[in-house]
């Protein structure tokens, strides 16, 4: 027997997920805040899917003491094409909403999981690269370190705090919206 089409409500939820995915482009996905005694207000590195924001120059200026490479958009080629991938994902999600096929939805969920894991892996790879590839001639020698994807870390006089941005929450919400139809249109 042919699989029943997904319900209209499920289709709407999936379409809504597509909207959230597009929306996420306009918000930061990830953020790192640096606190030190002389920077109680915190210095920010804010990562959008297509750009970096925050007090990048100041952070770079301070990082040179420990021989860390500069954060810059050139150092993150992902930023050049990530937004296209996201738009592609949104289009596929919208298509899923239109096709209303469970098998396609399974595929899409798989895509979300793979994409999310790749993103997290890419970011942690970058963090490892920056934290462990310190210049041997740096004025201040510290042990290599890897800042966590989420949570605290302490380097020299700085405490860093890694957090998710609104963009990531939109993606997570989109993912949850994709899961609801699985439960709602489950075969009894």
């Amino acid at each position: 027997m042919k699989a029943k089409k997904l319900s209209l409500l499920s289709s709407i939820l999936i379409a809504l997920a597509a909207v959230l995915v597009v929306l996420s482009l306009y918000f930061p996905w990830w953020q790192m805040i640096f606190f030190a005694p002389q920077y109680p207000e915190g210095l920010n590195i804010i990562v959008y899917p297509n750009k970096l924001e925050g007090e990048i120059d100041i952070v770079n200026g301070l990082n040179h003491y420990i021989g860390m490479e500069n954060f810059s958009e050139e150092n993150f080629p992902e930023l050049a094409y990530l937004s296209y991938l996201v738009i592609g994902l949104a289009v596929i999600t919208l298509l899923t909403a239109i096709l209303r096929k469970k098998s396609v939805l399974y595929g899409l969920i798989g895509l979300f999981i793979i994409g999310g894991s790749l993103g997290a892996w890419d970011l942690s790879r970058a963090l490892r690269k920056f934290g462990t590839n310190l210049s041997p001639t740096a004025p201040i020698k510290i042990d290599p370190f890897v800042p966590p994807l989420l949570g605290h870390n302490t380097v020299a006089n700085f405490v860093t705090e890694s957090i998710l941005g609104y963009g990531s929450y939109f993606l997570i919400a989109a993912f949850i919206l994709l899961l609801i139809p699985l439960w709602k249109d489950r075969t009894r």
Partner: protein
Amino acid sequence: MKKWIPIASGLLAGFVAATISFADFSTSTNNQAASGSTKSDAEKVYVPFGEKDDYYLFASGGHSGQMFIYGVPSMRHIRTVPVFSQDSATGYGFDEHSKKMMGGYTWGDLHHPAFSETKGDYDGKYMFATDVGNSRAAAMDLETFTVKDIINVPNTSGPHCAAFVTENTEYMFLPTRFAVPIGSDYKPLDEYSQQYRGVMSAVTFDQNQEKLNIAYQVALPPWSYDLSDAGKKSSADWAVMTTYNTEEATTNLEINASQADRDFIVLFNWKELEKMVAEGQYDEVTGQKMIFPEKHKGGIYLVPVAKSPHGVDVTPDGKHFIASGKLAPSMTVFSFDKAFEAVKNQDFSGERNGIPILKYESVMEREVNPENALGPLHTQFDDKGMAYTTMFISSEIVKWDPKTGETLDRIPVQYSPGHSVAAEGDTVSPDGKWLIALNKIAKDSYLSVGPSHPESMQLIDINGKMKVIQSSPVNPEPHYAQIIKADKIKTIEVYPKDENNKLATYKQEDAKIVRNGNEVHVYGIAMRSKFIFDAKAKRPDVIEVNQGDKVFIHLTNTDFDEDITHGFAINSYNLNMEVQPGQTNTLEFTADKAGTFPLYCTNFCSALHQEMTGYFLVKPKN
């Protein structure tokens, strides 16, 4: 048993319990009731760490040529801003811009700071000051607390009774303290009355270009002009200033300028003078548009006043001006409206040096003479329009009501107050919280530092009965000061990038040294914690020139970060400048000494500040 006993004892028990629980039995020695506050004096001036003062105090530094900035009520010294004197702490007077502004002078006598105003209220944009030592005026930007322009004022000598600005900063007037011949040419003192003039200058300030300019001058009689104030509200088009030595004495002024029973207040309408200039009623002398009052009539009047007057201050409502006697121990309240009426009716008692004199009786409202108060100098106002006058000789401040002349309060200060300043006390809306006495003498008040004692500022709480609650030793000389609400001042943290500035270098790889004949231009970068003068050189932090080269060092601080200021000094070359965050600054000099000269960052910038060095090598001529 009577019924009321249990009820009464119940009530009593309840009352006792309540008292024990809630009453405060600590023996508080609260003797502050008179001042209407429960805070102790210490609490009133204590600004805990993490909090900031409510007001800025800008105090003239007299012959230090500098402006001293304090917080009120803490009286903490926050910053010294160099204006007319070199300052090696900030490289002021060494870098190109400030060196040019100072025009070869190395000191000044900074008097009478004045804030820019909008509708008679401080707008927090600029601060002006004048130099009695070398006849100049300066404008300080309050975004950066740095001087943007200094102007030399020709034909005058010592603008003492300035700066005072008109209600919307249209003009600041600079009348001279010392009369001199036009152009300061040589003229024998025997020809004083004919050849000397007390020129007053109308100076404008262009806020977009940050440039001072002289609009016109007035060749007043050869008298000494002492203090002044602009009108407010209904008197906004007018201004007043006191003058002494109407005797036109040329020697031993102590005696000879104190003979006439009456001197004058010069009352003038600057709108009318402006119109006269527009209509061409002036002479062109020494490149200035000069109004000669005996020739170009109108707009200027004399008001007789008790001899050798000092301060003259306009009340916040703009209705009255108060002159203080100095040698006559009284204050005189004059009415603007009465003066306008007299001008309209041409009610003159005669002329002096071609200027009409108004009748004293027709302008005067009342003479005020508090008992035994001697040497009245300057008057400030509170939020209720009450006047506070400093008494130089009797060392006190007297509070009185300009409407009735009644003495309301008096308080001794230590000692000899010249000016005083109330919070926004010369605006249309004074705050009425604090008054600071600017004392000329502080003997025995502080730890001894030898024969010359520091001067002092005393903070007086004027909420209720006056009380001195804080005393601060200060650098010479607290001449006059102004107090502005802290939230009116909006400073910047870093200089914004200016891509149009051809002297700026923002990218490390762009740092370069360009030779042009015997001119060497260095486009360099200062950053934590190194200099880069030539990005491509083997040693990017070295400048090498030939003896006799003209060297320009254009240095940009690329640390766009709050409070990261760099300095730049060359050993033994008597050179030193400052580059604030994001700023580009230029040093220009001739490399006349051959040799090896280390250069270094003077302004502590980071943990590796000590390593922020390089070399300036000057190859000898053979």
